[in-house]
Structures are given as C-alpha cells and as structure tokens.
C-alpha cells in the first residue's frame, strides 16, 4: 500500500469512528427521552452506564486526529476533514452528557405522578433528534445546504422551551413536590435546547468541511 493509500485508510477509519460515535449518541438521546416519558429506570441507567463509551470514543478521536496531524501534516480537504471530525466529536460527546443529565432526572422522578402529561418535551426531543440525524447525514453526504436547512428548525426547539416555561408558570403549583417537578421539566427542556445548539454546531462544521468557511447557522 502506498503511503497516501495508507493515509486515506486512516482518514476513512476516522470517519467511521465518528459515525459510530454519532449513532451511539443518537441512541442515548432516544433512550433518555423514552426513560423520561415512561419513567423507566432501567432504560435510564443504560444511558448513565454507557456514557463512558462515548468519552472513550472522544479520546480515541482526539488521539487519532493528533497523530494524523503530526505524521501527515494535512492540508486542504484533509485538514478540513480532520479538524471537522474532531470538532463534531466534541459536540457529540457534550450531547451524550446531556443525555445522561436527562436520564438522571428520569431516575429522580421515576416514582412520581407527573403533574401534567409530557407533550412539549417529546416534541422538542423529536425535533432535536431530527436535527442531529440530519446534520450527521449532511456530514456523510458532504452537503452544506442540507446542513443549513436542518439547522433552521432549531428555532422551534427554542420556542417550545419558552412555551413550556409559560405553561408551567401559569399552572402555579403550590406543593413543593410539584415545583420540584416543574424545575426538573424545565431542566430537561433546557438540555434539549442545548442539544439542538450542538446539532447546529455540527451543521456549521459540515459547512466548514465542504466550503472552508466558518459561518453562524444560529441566526
């Protein structure tokens, strides 16, 4: 194998590693929300327990990017690919942390009767997950337009957080337990909002990878 072919192989492995990481994060996000809706401790603890895997994958990604930079001195699309992969891995790892935070809330509330049926949270989660999936898809296809399009829906997540806040506020719970729950719901909403922000970051890295331009998809 020529050295260039070997290098291609390493770049391909790096990409595959990133995609494996993305699908694990997507799974954790789905499980965390399910645990929240079903108040299922078993599902929640999978997310908490397996987060180490994501952290390890992030470290492995850093190591392979550093060694590629040190040994290959990448330029042009290689440089953008390596930088992008490392940045996306960072965003994915953060999302994984939010999945853990949500799962921990699910565990905390597992035996309580919810003061209201969860409607906005699953909707928000669905949008955020679609964003994550769409941005990873855009990464795989090197499609900057798709990335930009997907990130437009981030506003909906932000709006729903606002709506949820207004709704809970107007319910005006008196019981300490009720207020505690409301706060937990708002935390979950906030985490989902942050997940949407990280998905937007991924979209921005996809645009960078394709065009070399650093842009803001958040406006």
């Amino acid at each position, binding site marked *: 194998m020529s*050295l*260039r072919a070997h*290098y291609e192989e390493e770049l391909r492995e790096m990409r595959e590693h990133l995609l494996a990481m993305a699908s694990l994060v997507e799974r954790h996000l789905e499980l965390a929300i399910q645990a929240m809706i079903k108040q299922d401790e078993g599902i929640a603890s999978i997310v908490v327990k397996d987060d180490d895997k994501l952290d390890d994958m992030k470290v492995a990604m850093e190591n392979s990017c550093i060694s590629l930079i040190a040994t290959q*001195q*990448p*330029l*042009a*699309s*290689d*440089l*953008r690919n390596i930088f992008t992969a490392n940045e996306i891995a960072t965003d994915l790892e953060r999302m994984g942390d939010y999945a853990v935070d949500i799962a921990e809330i699910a565990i905390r509330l597992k035996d309580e009767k919810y003061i209201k049926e969860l409607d906005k949270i699953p909707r928000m989660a669905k949008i955020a997950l679609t964003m994550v999936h769409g941005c990873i898809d855009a990464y795989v296809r090197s499609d900057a337009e798709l990335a930009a399009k997907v990130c437009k829906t981030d506003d909906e997540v932000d709006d729903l957080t606002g709506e949820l806040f207004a709704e809970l506020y107007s319910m005006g719970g008196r019981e300490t337990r009720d207020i505690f729950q409301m706060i937990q719901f708002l935390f979950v909403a906030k985490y989902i909002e942050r997940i949407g922000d990280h998905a937007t970051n991924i979209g921005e890295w996809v645009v960078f990878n394709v*065009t*070399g*331009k650093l842009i803001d998809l958040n406006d």
Partner: protein
Amino acid sequence: MENAVKISVKNLNLYYGDLQALKEVNIEISENSVTALIGPSGCGKSTFLKTLNRMNDLIPNTKITGEVLLDGNDIYAGDCDVIELRKNIGMVFQKPNPFPMSVFDNVAYGPRVHGERNKRALQETVERSLKAAALWDEVKDRLSKPALGLSGGQQQRLCIARVLAVQPEVVLMDEPTSSLDPISTGKIEDLMDELKKKYTIIIVTHNMQQAARISERTAFFLLGDLIEEGDTIDIFKTPRDKRTEDYITGRFG
C-alpha cells in the same frame, strides 16, 4: 491586498526550442511580501523565476513572449539595463554556490563589481549583509577564510548575504533550504520573514509546510500553466482547483 504591485507578469510564454515551458502566465506580485511557487518537478518554477531577472537570456534557443513589468517597466524592453536589473532582482540558487574566495570577498563581490572601492564602505556592507543573513556571529572571526570551508547551511546564508550586499529590491530564491537541516532552515525562514519588510521575495519550495509558514501568496504551477494563485491560507485550506488540491494533499500521480 494593500501592498503595491512590484512585478506584473502578463501573458508570459517561454519556449526551450520546441518545448513550451511557460504558458500564458499572468500574475501580480506585491511589494514587501513573500510569494511561494509550488508545483511538481519540471512544471516550470525555476524557469519562471529565471524570467524575472532574465537569467534565461543565458540559455541558448529560448524564446519568450509577453511582458514582465518591474515597477511598471518592461524588463524585456530594448532599453532595459540587464546588469542593473540583476542588481535589483537578486537570486539565490538551490545549491549554495559560494565563489572560491574568502567569506569577505564573496559578500564584497557584488558591490565591487558595481564600482564600490572604498574599503570602509565595503567593510560596512559586508557586516550589514552578514548580519541580515543571520550569519555574522558565526563568521565574524573567519572573514578571511575560504567560503568553501563553511557548512552547507552557512554557505547558503552566505549566498543570501551576497545577494543582499547589492541591496536588491526583489530576492528570488530557488529551493533555498532543500538541503538544509531544520535549524538552518528555521534561520533562513526567519530571515525571509525579516527581509520582506524591505524586499519583495519569491521563493520556490517543495515543502508545503514551508510555503504555508512563510508566504502571503502561493502560486501553483503544473506543466507550465499557472493553475491557481491566491492567499496562502486559502490555497492550503480551500484550494479552488481540483489539481491544486490533489497536488498539495499528495494525491497526484
């Protein structure tokens, strides 16, 4: 790009007999900047460099068309003084080529040819040039010793000092560090960074990282064509042309 245009090349073609080594090259080179020329072996980088101070005049059977304007004046016009031109546009070759004489005489050679006879003035010029080439400290106690006794990296810097001694406006460097260790390379790169404050520098290099480190602009040649030229950072981050991309990432061939 704010700097004034120092050299403007228009529709330049060069033929070695039947072989066309440069094809319709158009490029503008700014003052006080480093421009890197990159491209595979045989693509015409050295040839292009030589057209800028008419070194190619010395090669029989060459034909050249188009214009090379230095400060707006065509260097191929009939009234151009070639000796003066080569004083203004100095050249450092890939292989260090010190003359078989002392360190001092090597550096004083150019000024003497141009009529400087004053001993003191020559001494000052030699010291200033060796300092500018980051060589003074290493040779100040052996100025009368043969230049060929210097190490390769020292010889290369001596050749640079020799060019600087005649106070050129433009310095052409053809792979000046290709045979040097990283320390000497670093010194020459620092030197270029320093020199560009006063001079305009054009360097041929096969080392992409070197081009990326030291130049403001980069031009990529392929088979005599200037494929792409632009801000160095853009060329190495997001080249426009697929052939540039393939070359700098090593996917060629």
